[in-house]
């Protein structure tokens, strides 16, 4: 059975994929549906949801369209989540591969650096970094990467340590391949599957960290973020709870979608490997 069909037979995986697809669709059509500035005033302040069908999710304290903010916020969450995860996986795999393959002093140095990053709570690291450098989308991504690349690095290293003893690595050395080519062409691709299996957890964590930073006012001020929306709604939590609840639900569904779809992919590929 091909992996796609097996994936489609797993209900959780399908649910996750649908949630993710909806999120991506939201992010893609946001500028088409809401071409203007999502932070512009669109109507009366604090309009509750489902009152005015031109503003179905109502408005916030300043009269901004919550639905437009939600769609544009999806762009930010998705962009930050994917960019941070991709960067963390790339940096982690490269560091882990170099450490595991080179061994000796290089390994020792790289792993002590990894330890140093891992012992500081990753959220604190991100918080400190953004407060020093200043909030912008790129900085937020970098701040999240600072605390998340260590996991992939450790897993990649452990995998590389076992792969470098295999015959095909000896064979590559025997034909005179350069050590760097062996590390990145022969070893790294085969060390990747368990590292990639972490990607859903990392994307989910990155989305949440971004939301938390924005909630604390450390997000990119020029962009709508779900975390920022929740923080905005906090002031009127008693009178207009929907302002916090709507982006909160979006956040939960996103993390759930990423996680379920990721698990589904891991599961289907694991079954495949088990069979062959």
């Amino acid at each position: 059975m091909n992996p796609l069909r097996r994936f489609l037979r797993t209900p959780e995986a399908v649910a996750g994929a649908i949630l993710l697809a909806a999120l991506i669709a939201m992010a893609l059509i946001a500028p088409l549906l809401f071409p203007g500035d999502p932070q512009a005033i669109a109507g009366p302040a604090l309009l509750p949801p489902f009152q005015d069908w031109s503003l179905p999710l109502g408005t916030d304290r300043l009269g901004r369209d919550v639905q437009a903010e939600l769609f544009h916020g999806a762009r930010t969450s998705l962009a930050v989540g994917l960019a941070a995860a991709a960067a963390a996986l790339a940096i982690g795999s490269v560091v882990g591969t170099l450490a595991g393959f080179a061994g000796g002093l290089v390994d020792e140095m790289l792993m002590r650096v990894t330890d140093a990053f891992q012992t500081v709570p990753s959220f604190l690291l991100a918080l400190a970094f953004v407060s020093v450098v200043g909030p912008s989308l790129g900085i937020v991504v970098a701040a999240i990467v600072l605390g998340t690349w260590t996991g992939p690095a450790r897993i990649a290293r452990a995998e590389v340590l076992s792969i470098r003893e295999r015959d095909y690595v000896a064979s590559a050395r025997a034909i005179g391949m350069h050590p760097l080519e062996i590390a990145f062409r022969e070893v790294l691709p085969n060390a990747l599957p368990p590292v990639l299996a972490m990607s859903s957890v990392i994307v989910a964590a990155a989305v949440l960290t971004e939301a938390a930073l924005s909630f604390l006012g450390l997000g990119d001020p020029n962009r709508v973020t779900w975390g920022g929306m929740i923080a905005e709604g906090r002031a009127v939590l008693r009178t207009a709870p929907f302002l916090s609840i709507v982006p909160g639900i979006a956040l939960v569904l996103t993390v759930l979608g990423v996680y379920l779809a990721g698990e589904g992919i891991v599961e289907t590929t694991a079954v495949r490997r088990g069979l062959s």
Partner: protein
Amino acid sequence: MSALASIHDLTVTYRRDGNAVAALRNISLDIVAGERLAVIGESGSGKSTLALAIAGLLPASSAVDGRIEWPGPGQPPLLGRDIGFVFQDPSVSLDPVMTVGKQIAEVARTHLGLTWSQAYAKAKTLLERVRLPDPDSALHAFPHQLSGGQKQRVAIAAAIAAGPKLLIADEATSALDTIVQAEIVALIRRLVAEDGMTLLFISHDIALATELAERIAVFRHGQLVELGTTARIVGAPAQAYTRTLLDAHIGLDAAPLLNRSGLHA
């Protein structure tokens, strides 16, 4: 000559990525009580599938057609109690975190209803029987402390702990070097004789099979090519494939290949 097991028209099919692959096709074969029967073949011949089918160890994803009958009195045989199974790689078949003594004692306790102390005494006797050096300390050793040959001796001790009628050795010596292989083959021969067991010896090595077995079944592509006494198979093979296997054996008396190429003649 009474049959211990009668295999009728056995077909085993594995499903792999949606395709059905026949590992065994219409095999009919009697295993005679008390005999030493070797099943030989190359990779993909189905010889291991036959061993697994007889032991009831086929994976759930396989489809089985035909039947295996056990004409003797009593219940159908139970793996561990009535059938002992020795795998190719003892470092995989032994539990790495359980002492050697406990692994053997557990078989004896489960199938013979012994107490733990009786089972341990039995385990010690078995370790002596398989000629493990220093059986007292070996009882408390873990598999990784033993050499490959010693591990295989432990696996054999566990396989015969409950006094099975049938011992199946599936490529049990293939991972060992020649000297240890010869020792293990001698051990199996002795244990089978002492306990009156029936032996099913699965191997890719026709010469090794002729040293141990009274009858040889030659398998190829899931089919039984021919079955006969060892002397008949070696002396007068009826099938061309059997002859190919015999010719391919390079013994210590084989003509040097070097002369054929004319290089160092």
